[in-house]
């Protein structure tokens, strides 16, 4: 296999509250021989909120990020569902609306950039599955995750709206997604089947509609726990933040104790590939997760 090379759009969260996401992503790439160039020029994607304030501005700023991947001639990869959706939405809007593309490029020209539409945008999860390949990952497993029941939590923005993602997520069925389940199996873990695996975690209304947010996260976590999950895994750091950081509050609102380690997708892969404890960074979780490392040892 020729060496895979990607331009990594880290997003804000991996640079701030989830440093373990960045370190485990880089560790996985290194173990698999994937070459990563971090887009140090990239700005925030607007996290699906800036667009509500000013949709045009959000397109301009997202297009700028994509320009830097285009300059390198690489696929832009993301490690956050919301970064993936926002970047892909801008790409779709510009690639299908020449008038909008011209208006955006008029602004970008002021800083010496031009959006062409030449780079693909893919979440790292789907690069691993569709481009690196599950069979190849299987061969690299050093520490099988066979004694863990792992609940895959997909997060909305990688799977919906499916029309927009079809070229980037291998045609994942949003009503019955399977990519994470397949990845868990490739790492020899036991995927947990539960109804809420493709539902919303409520992160985006944490501030303004706290009750809605806690109930949505709680429903998913309780469903996973009731189906014997030892841990949950998600490709989205925002789902991680909601479900890891707020377990007390969630439990309080839904009237049940909720305790479940929530791993980032690359952390799970890094565990199975035998990366170091520091690279995996399980100590950065609010809900204790370091025991998972020693349990694999």
């Amino acid at each position, binding site marked *: 296999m020729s060496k895979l090379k990607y331009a990594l759009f880290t997003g804000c969260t991996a640079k701030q509250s989830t*440093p373990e996401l960045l370190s485990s992503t880089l560790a996985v790439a290194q173990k698999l021989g994937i070459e990563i160039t971090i887009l140090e020029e990239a700005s*925030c994607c607007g996290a699906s909120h*800036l667009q509500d*304030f000013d949709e*045009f501005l959000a397109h301009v700023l997202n297009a700028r990020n994509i320009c830097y991947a285009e300059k390198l001639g690489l696929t832009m990869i993301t490690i956050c569902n919301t970064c993936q959706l926002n970047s892909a939405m801008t790409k779709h809007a510009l690639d299908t609306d020449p008038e909008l593309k011209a208006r955006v490029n008029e602004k970008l020209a002021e800083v010496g950039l031009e959006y062409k539409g030449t780079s693909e945008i893919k979440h790292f999860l789907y690069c691993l599955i569709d481009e690196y390949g599950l069979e190849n990952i299987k061969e690299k497993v050093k520490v099988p995750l066979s004694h863990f029941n792992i609940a895959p939590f997909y997060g909305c923005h990688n799977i919906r709206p499916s029309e927009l993602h079809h070229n980037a997520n291998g045609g994942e069925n949003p009503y019955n997604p399977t990519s994470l389940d397949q990845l868990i199996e490739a790492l020899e873990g036991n995927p947990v089947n539960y109804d809420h695996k493709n539902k919303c975690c409520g992160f985006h*209304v944490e501030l303004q509609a706290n009750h*809605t947010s806690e109930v949505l996260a709680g429903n998913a976590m309780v469903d996973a726990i009731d189906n014997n999950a030892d841990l949950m895994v998600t490709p989205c750091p925002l789902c991680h933040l909601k479900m890891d950081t707020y377990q007390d509050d969630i439990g309080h609102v839904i009237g049940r104790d909720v305790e479940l380690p929530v791993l980032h997708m690359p952390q799970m892969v890094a565990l199975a590939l035998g990366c170091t404890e520091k690279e995996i960074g399980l100590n950065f979780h609010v809900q204790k997760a370091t025991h998972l490392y020693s349990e694999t040892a």
Partner: protein
Amino acid sequence: MSDTRKVTLKTFRFNAETDYLPYYKHYELEVGKDELMLDLLNRIKWEHDGSFSYRRSCRHGICGACGIKVNGKATLACKQNALELVELFGDELLIEPQSKKRVVKDMIIDKKDFWDKHAEVKPYVVAEIDPHPEHETKQSIEEFNKFLDADLCIQCGSCHYACPAVEVNEDFLGPAAFTAAYRFTVDTRDEAGKERLELTSQMGPGVWDCVKCYECAEACPKEINPIEKITKLHNMQFEQGVAVPNVATRHAEGFLRGMKKYGLLDEADIVSYSEGYLGMYKHLKTALKMLKAGKIHWHSGVPFINSVPKIKHLDEVQKLIKISQTNKL
């Protein structure tokens, strides 16, 4: 290869007048390649169980009566080819009403909440009309195009009953009502735009309680993309000065604060800016937990102050914000 497939239909059954609990009845049918879900519902009723109940009327995907869920997927029975669903889900199809908690009988639900919320946004043109006008009111193609596809909504309720915010928050108007609010607010003949924008800007019922799950975009059989209209309503609230500073509007606008300074969202600042310093106390416990886990860190030596690394070529972002920003709070 035969053109038919053997399919098991697991149908939800409940009669609010006689049943204490719902149950499921299974039917095995040989399904042809041209059969629609509605054909299968008809066959169950006509060939197996005359008491099986569902709504249908136009059979052309325009009356919105026949909305159901199949394996959790919102479906217009008269538009949906059955074997396409078998492709998607395998040969066992779970046939359920749009909302189990609103069931009257089998697939038939009480859509009162849907219609009430729809009515609340004044889903019609509000205008003082001269009863004897000299000429008709004309709209240009550009004016018409502003509706986007919102005019094609058939009020089937698929998006509404797929929406988790509707499920949790009974005040939330929901994606179909927002689509209608958008449709009539951008109509150049209409005079109630401001009123609709104010209604949809309220915390609780309004667009700010949307959790951005994109279930509505996925569910709509007419491919209307309600959340696209929700984004437009958000933007219009700012454009037309309807948006008032509150936790939600500041949260949306506040992204620019970090982006101007670092190119990235300042996670600590966005919470304090959105909530106001007094509102911050709610988050103290969470902040302490995050601090303990190392989820809050700083680059300047002081927590929360200059805690974000700057991106390369920050000046470009600053300039682009200056020349491209169209709205303000």
